């Protein structure tokens, strides 16, 4: 076991999958010799050559469209969006061609779209967005958002092996900030399974991506005050792991949802709505959400800080909820 950063784990997953299966290939802008804007594909071009690590023109719709075509032929493309923000340019191909293919005519589209998302790096309105909410509302897609190197590797490998189109959101804030020991071997983290990252009995936090770390930090803060928060890393956003979620609700009777995506119409809404519907009798308090403001992502640091959730805001919500 070696200590890997989040981005190294992502790179290792691609490397291993490309070694394992010659149908796996990569395409995107600057992913080749340059290794990608964030260097996620670094050294892959050198190892696997230009046929399997393909630099494309700036044309997200064609990147995804071509990936769909290749996937229909049995290839397993991994397409990179340079920033998740630009996935909007490929929206149509994703929601209309890829997502509906199997339902309509039984043709599998084993396609992964990697998209560096999230803020906290002063990227401003177009280099910070969290677009998962849109894709969460598209039947036929799977949506993944890892928070740790181990999960990042195992989930990406699972996504590549999955026969459905998977959008894989990697949080750019975590790329080099988060590291841990990661198995070198061939393991996967199955899609659709949440993971309890911190056990606790007083309330459950449902979260994912960068907010997992903020939530853990908040849980540590309030632990001193006697509030024992359980923190669940959803990991796969579509489909959600309702089994674990319900167990946690039944155990703690209080639920806090935390995500970095903007609040209104975010994934937290569905979580809250479904939990309140299906486990109404188990709830001792209203389900609270901590999320980003309903605005574009502002650039200037004080604005972005105000916009984003953080451990302080999460801890405050935990206290409120515990007191309710």
């Amino acid at each position: 076991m070696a200590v890997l950063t989040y981005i190294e784990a992502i790179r290792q997953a691609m490397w291993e999958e490309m070694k394992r299966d010659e149908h796996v290939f990569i395409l995107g802008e600057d992913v080749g010799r340059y290794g990608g804007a964030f260097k996620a594909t670094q050294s892959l071009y050198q190892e696997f050559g230009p046929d399997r690590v393909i630099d494309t023109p700036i044309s997200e719709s064609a990147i995804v469209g071509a990936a769909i075509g290749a996937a229909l032929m049995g290839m397993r493309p991994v397409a990179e969006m340079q920033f998740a923000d630009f996935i909007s340019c490929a929206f149509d191909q994703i929601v209309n061609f890829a997502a509906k293919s199997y339902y309509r005519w039984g043709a599998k589209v084993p396609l992964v779209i990697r998209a560096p998302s999230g803020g906290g790096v002063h990227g401003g309105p177009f280099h910070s967005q969290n677009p998962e909410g849109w894709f969460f509302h598209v039947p036929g897609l799977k949506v993944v958002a890892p928070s740790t190197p181990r999960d990042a590797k195992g989930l990406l490998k699972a996504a590549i092996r999955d026969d459905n189109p998977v959008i894989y959101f990697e949080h750019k804030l975590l790329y080099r900030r988060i590291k841990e020991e990661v198995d070198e071997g061939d393991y996967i983290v199955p899609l659709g399974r949440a993971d309890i990252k911190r056990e606790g009995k007083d309330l459950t936090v449902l979260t994912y991506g960068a907010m997992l770390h903020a939530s853990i930090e908040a849980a540590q803060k309030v632990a001193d005050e006697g509030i024992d928060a359980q923190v669940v890393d959803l990991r796969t956003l579509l489909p959600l792991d309702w089994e674990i979620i319900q167990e946690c609700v039944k155990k703690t009777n209080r639920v806090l949802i935390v995500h970095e995506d903007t609040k209104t119409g975010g994934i937290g809404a569905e979580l809250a709505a479904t939990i309140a519907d299906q486990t109404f009798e188990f709830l001792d308090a209203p389900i609270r959400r901590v999320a980003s403001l309903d605005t574009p992502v502002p650039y200037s640091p004080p604005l972005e800080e105000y916009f984003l959730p953080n451990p302080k805001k999460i801890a405050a919500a935990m206290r409120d909820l515990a007191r309710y």
Partner: protein
Amino acid sequence: MSLDRKKMLDMYYHLRLTRALEDRVRILYRQGKIPGGVYLSTGQEAISVGLTHALEPEDVIAISYRDLGALLTRGMAPASVFAQYLGKITSPTRGKDGSLHIGDLKLGIICPVSILADNIPVAAGIALAMKLMGKKNISVALFGEGASNRGDFHEGLNLASVKKLPVLYVCINNQFAYSTPLSTTMAIKDVATRAAGYNIPGQVLDGNDIFAVHSAVAEAAKRARQGEGPTLLECKTMRMTGHSEHDNANYIPKNLLEQWKKKDPILIMEKHLTEAKVLTKRLKEEITSRIAKGIEEGIKAAEEAPLPKGEEAEKDVYAPSS
């Protein structure tokens, strides 16, 4: 032209079958039996038939929504097509989709989506896969002149050309995009002109002459197979019906239609085959009745097939992972 007798008669058969099947669909529609929309290819059938006959069986065609000829040439049964229109469980989409949204990977046909031009980058990806898998096959995308105005046309042709992918882009220029004549949607006369922007050959041809289509496609396919990259073929033709069957198309000048009627692809082919002594009166009658029989059997099978059960709607959103 180096086509043998059998091949020519096959082409003729598929051309006639396409026309006849659509004529029957039109009747079904007027009888109120088709729940959804009906978009026909009357007058432009030579393109998808001629094209498909010029390809290898393992070449893949990303059709558009009027390309019944490609489906039938590849062996899709009339019963399946009727079942699709009628929304029966026996349809290729099990009732999930309608109109000509039919595909079958075994037949090398990609099921179209309604969104025009989406199949253009998709075909590039299919060609890319061919190349990566070391196959000598090619892909083809079919689309209208109207669709060539969408961004995906540009992105797809650009990607295909810079990567020299084995793909043919076949534009069916039938003069109209729904109600809109070509002149109000682009400043050029020939879509083929756009090939210059990708440094690929662009060729205009008579889409109503099935042999012209066949030889141009065969030629371009050869180039693609040899690694020389994509070609943009523009087949001029005319949409002889409404955009869909509920559109009376009164925006199309009558005399334009009359002109084109004289250039009907079946007429042209029959003239040629008769002159070449390939088609005799008897043979023609035989083919006519074989087609009529096939169609009536197809209709019967489709009409007798059950509709899907409601619960089917819930199934198959996701492929089970292998």
